[in-house]
C-alpha cells in the first residue's frame, strides 16, 4: 500500500487547514534559521574584519624596558621569535606579517584628523592585505615608495585631499619624541575602521625609520593560521618555546584582575605589577580576545532565538495536538471504515502520523524558503552611513550577511519534524484506542 500517496491526498483534501498548520511551523522555522544565520554572519564578518585589520589570528607584541624605566614598543630579539616560530607545526601556519604602527594626527592644509593609525606593512610579503584592500580611488602601483600612503576613506574624506596630494603625519617615536613625516596619497582604501581607529597604510621600511626603529625591527608579528581552531594550540606552543629560549613573557594577570575583566579582554593587557627584564618582552594575544566581546553579544542573541524557537515549537505543538484531535473526531468514521476493511491499527497509525510529517515537512520547506528570501532582501540594504566602528566590524562591505548553514538547517528541520510527529502521535494513539464498532457507530 502506498501510504505516502494516501497521506498526501488526505492532507491536500483539507488544504486550508493543512496550510495554516504548515505556516505556523514555517514561522517558527524561519525565525530560528534566520537568527542563527544572522549570528553566524556577524561572527564571520567580525573574524574576517579583525583578521584583515590585524593581519592574522595571533598577535605577538614586543616591549623593551629602557634604563630610564620607560617601556617602548619594539621587537629587537628577532632571533628568539624566529626560533620560536620553528617550534610550531608548519602545516598550521598559513603566513605571518611583521608590522609597525604609529598613532597621530594627519594634517592637510589646516584640516586635521587626530587619533589616526598609520600601519607600516611589508608590501613584498603581505599579499593578503594587498589583495583584501578595497581601493576606491588611486592605485597601489607606487606602494613600495616609503613616502607613499594608502589613506583610509574616513581620513581622506575628512582631510578633503586628493590623490597625489602631500599630507603631513605628526606622531611620536617609540621613545616619545615628536616626529613629522610627509606622505603622498597614492590610493584610498574603503574604511575598515576597527576599535575606533581608522587605519592608513605605508611601507614598514620608512615608518620604522621615522619611529626610531632599526630596519630589521618591528612592533608586532601577526600570524595567520589555516584553521582558526588551532589558535590556542599555536599560542601555547609559542609561549612555551619563547620561555625555553630565555625570552620574557609578561607576568600573569592576577586572578582578581581576571575576574574583574569584563568581556575577557584582559589578555590584551599586561599585568600592572612591576616587572623588570632585558631584551624584548613578548605579549601574545589572539583573535578570540577580541571576539569575546562579539561572542558575548552573539550568545545573548542565540539564547533569545532559542527561547523564541522553544515558544514557537510549543505553540505549534499545542496547535498540532488540538488540530489533530479535531481531525481525529472528524475522521472517526473514516478510521473505523479503514479498520473494518482490514487495515491494522498500526497501519492506520502509520498513515495518520505520515500526514503529520507531511504537514511538518511542508512547514519546514516554507520556513527555509521564507528565510532565504527574507535574508536576501535584508542583505540588500547598506548600512555605510553607520560610522560606528563596532557596527562596521559586524558588517560585510556595509551589508548584513546571512551565510547558509546547511547542517544547522537540517538539524532544525529534523527537530521540528520530530516534535511534530510527537505532537500528532498523541491524538492519533487516543483515537485508535477505540474499537472498530465504536468508531463505526
Amino acid at each position, binding site marked *: 500500500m502506498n501510504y505516502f500517496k494516501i497521506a498526501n491526498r488526505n492532507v491536500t483534501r483539507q488544504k486550508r487547514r493543512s496550510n495554516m498548520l504548515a505556516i505556523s511551523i514555517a514561522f517558527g522555522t524561519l525565525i530560528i534559521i534566520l537568527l542563527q544565520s544572522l549570528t553566524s554572519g556577524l561572527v564571520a564578518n567580525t573574524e574576517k574584519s579583525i583578521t584583515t585589520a590585524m593581519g592574522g589570528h595571533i598577535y605577538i607584541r614586543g616591549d623593551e624596558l629602557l634604563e630610564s*624605566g620607560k617601556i617602548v614598543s619594539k621587537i629587537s630579539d628577532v632571533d628568539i621569535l624566529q626560533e620560536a616560530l620553528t617550534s610550531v607545526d608548519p602545516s598550521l601556519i598559513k603566513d605571518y606579517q611583521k608590522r609597525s604602527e604609529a598613532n597621530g594626527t594627519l594634517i592637510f592644509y589646516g584640516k586635521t584628523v587626530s587619533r589616526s593609525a598609520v600601519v607600516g606593512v611589508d608590501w613584498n610579503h603581505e599579499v593578503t592585505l594587498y589583495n583584501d584592500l578595497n581601493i576606491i580611488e588611486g592605485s597601489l602601483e607606487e606602494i613600495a615608495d616609503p613616502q607613499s600612503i594608502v589613506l583610509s576613506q574616513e581620513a581622506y574624506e575628512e582631510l578633503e585631499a586628493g590623490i597625489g596630494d602631500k599630507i603631513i603625519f605628526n606622531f611620536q617615536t617609540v621613545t616619545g619624541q615628536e616626529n613629522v613625516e610627509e606622505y603622498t596619497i597614492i590610493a584610498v582604501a574603503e574604511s575598515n575602521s576597527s576599535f575606533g581607529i581608522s587605519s592608513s597604510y605605508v611601507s614598514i621600511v620608512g615608518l620604522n625609520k621615522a619611529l626610531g626603529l632599526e630596519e630589521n625591527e618591528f612592533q608586532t608579528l601577526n600570524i595567520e593560521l589555516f584553521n582558526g581552531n588551532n589558535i590556542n594550540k599555536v599560542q601555547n606552543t609559542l609561549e612555551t618555546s619563547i620561555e625555553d629560549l630565555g625570552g620574557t613573557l609578561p607576568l600573569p594577570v592576577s586572578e582578581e584582575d581576571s575576574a574583574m575583566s569584563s568581556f575577557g579582554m584582559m589578555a590584551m593587557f599586561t599585568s600592572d605589577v612591576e616587572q623588570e627584564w632585558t631584551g624584548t618582552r613578548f605579549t601574545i594575544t589572539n583573535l578570540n580576545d577580541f571576539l569575546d566581546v562579539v561572542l558575548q553579544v552573539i550568545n545573548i542573541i542565540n539564547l533569545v532565538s532559542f527561547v523564541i524557537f522553544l515558544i514557537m515549537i510549543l505553540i505549534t505543538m499545542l496547535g498540532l495536538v488540538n488540530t489533530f484531535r479535531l481531525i481525529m473526531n472528524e475522521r472517526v468514521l473514516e478510521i473505523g471504515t479503514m479498520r473494518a476493511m482490514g487495515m491494522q491499527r498500526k497501519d492506520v497509525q502509520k498513515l495518520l502520523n505520515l500526514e503529520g510529517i507531511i504537514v511538518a515537512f511542508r512547514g519546514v520547506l516554507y520556513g527555509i524558503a521564507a528565510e532565504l528570501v527574507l535574508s536576501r532582501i535584508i542583505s540588500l540594504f547598506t548600512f555605510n552611513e553607520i560610522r560606528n566602528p563596532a557596527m562596521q566590524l559586524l558588517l560585510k562591505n556595509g551589508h548584513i550577511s546571512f551565510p547558509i548553514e546547511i547542517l544547522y538547517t537540517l538539524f532544525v528541520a529534523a527537530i521540528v519534524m520530530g516534535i511534530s510527529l510527537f505532537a500528532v502521535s498523541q491524538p492519533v494513539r487516543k483515537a485508535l484506542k477505540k474499537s472498530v464498532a465504536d468508531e463505526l457507530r
Partner: protein
Amino acid sequence: MKNKKAIIIMILVLIMSSSLMAITVNEATEILKEIDEYSNFAGKSFSSTISMISEDPEDGIDKTVVYQFRDDDNDKFLMLLKEPSIKKGQGYLKIDDNLWFYDPESRKFSHTSLSEQFNASDANNSDFTSSSLLEDYKVTEVTEQTLGSYETYVLTLEALNDEVTYPQQKVWVSVKGFLVLKKEEYSKSNKLMRSSYYLKYIKLGENFIPTKTIFQDELVEGKKTTITLSDVSTKDIPDSVFTKSYVERVNN
C-alpha cells in the same frame, strides 16, 4: 681718503663689538644652566592660576583655567582644571617619572606622558614641569640675533637622549639676564613643529617666570595657544596636595 678711513674705523668697531658679544658653545652651556636655575623653584613651592586661550581654525576658540602647583625639589606637579565647567576636576599629577591624568567622571587615573598635549592645546605637559635643559640638551651652535628690540643669543640645541619631546630646539636668549624670549622646536625629521614666544616675565625672588606665552603650531596654520599666569606665589604647598587622594576629593 676720508671715506676710506671712516670705513676702516667702522669695520674695526663692528669686529670689536661682535667679538664682545660672541660666546663659545661652553659659555652657552652655562646659559642653559642659568635658565634652569632661574626657572626652577629650588627650596620653595610655586603655584599660579593659568588661563589658556586656544585658537583652532577648525574648532574655534576655547578657554581653559587651570590651578598649577609645583614642587620642583621633589619633581612633582599638579594641574587642576577649573574651567570649562565640563572639565572641572580633571587633573594632571606628576610624581617622579609618573604622570597621571584624573577624570572625575570615571573617577579613574590613567597614565599619560609629558610629551602629550595638555588638554588638547598647543602646550605640552612638559611645558609645566621644572626646566632641565642642561640635563637634556647640548648646545651645538651659538649665533647672535636681534629679536625685536632685544639683543639675543640663538642657541641651537640637540637632545642628549631620545626621550625628550623635541629632539632639536633653537632658543633665543636675551643677552641681558639670559631670559628665554623665543623657542623653535623641531621634530626628529628636523621639521619646525612649534614656535613659542615668551612675552612677559615677572621676578619672584631669584626666579624669573614667564607670565604670558604664546605657543604657535607650525604644522596647522592659525592654531595657537596663549597662556597667561596670575596669582603667582611661592608659598609653601603641603605634600598632601601632590597625592591622588587630594586630586580625587578636591572638587567633591
